[in-house]
């Protein structure tokens, strides 16, 4: 699944560590999501969407 997490984070000048703190996950998790190695669960996707004040589909894109 593609996502715009890195772009959205860069727009706010947040580091991966900043985002990890805000989401209460590890930096390793943020990195894995950004690089597409891990697709977050629905609850975490909602948390990410709420943090960036966007809808889930504006952040995550299923190419299928």
């Amino acid at each position, binding site marked *: 699944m593609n996502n715009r997490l890195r772009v959205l984070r860069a727009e706010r000048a947040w580091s991966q560590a900043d985002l990890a703190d805000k989401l209460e*996950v*590890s930096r*390793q998790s943020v990195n894995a999501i950004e690089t597409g*190695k*891990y697709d977050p669960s629905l609850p975490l996707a909602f948390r990410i969407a709420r943090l960036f004040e966007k809808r889930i589909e504006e952040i995550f894109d299923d190419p299928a």
Partner: protein
Amino acid sequence: MGCRVKSKAEKRYLKRLIWAMSVYVVVVFLTTILVRHGHVTGWILYVVAVAPCIPILRLIQVLALYVQEETDEFQRLLVVRSILCGGAAMLVVAAFSDFLRSYTKIGDLPPFTMFMVFWVVFGLAQGVQGMMTRAVDDE
């Protein structure tokens, strides 16, 4: 895993793991001494012989508690994968050993092999996954 910041659940897990491992080592040591030099016989021998299983049960509980308490779902996934790798390796070694013992005269493994296989493969899986998912510095 390097200098990654550990979650509260992970800190609790490491503390419990170190304690349980230490207890296991002590119990195995005491059991060996008692069985070899304590002249233990009868049903007491059986009780003493299986005593090291108690800290092993605690180790399994420590892993289960970590999976239950870890709120970071990605970290949880990595540990569950490692547990599966350790379990699979243990099962493969057990199957090879059992079939060899059943159909040939070889295949007897030294005591505690399974325990070692699980933890070595569990640790390796943790290390490999840690390297594969290491966060690159983007600061």
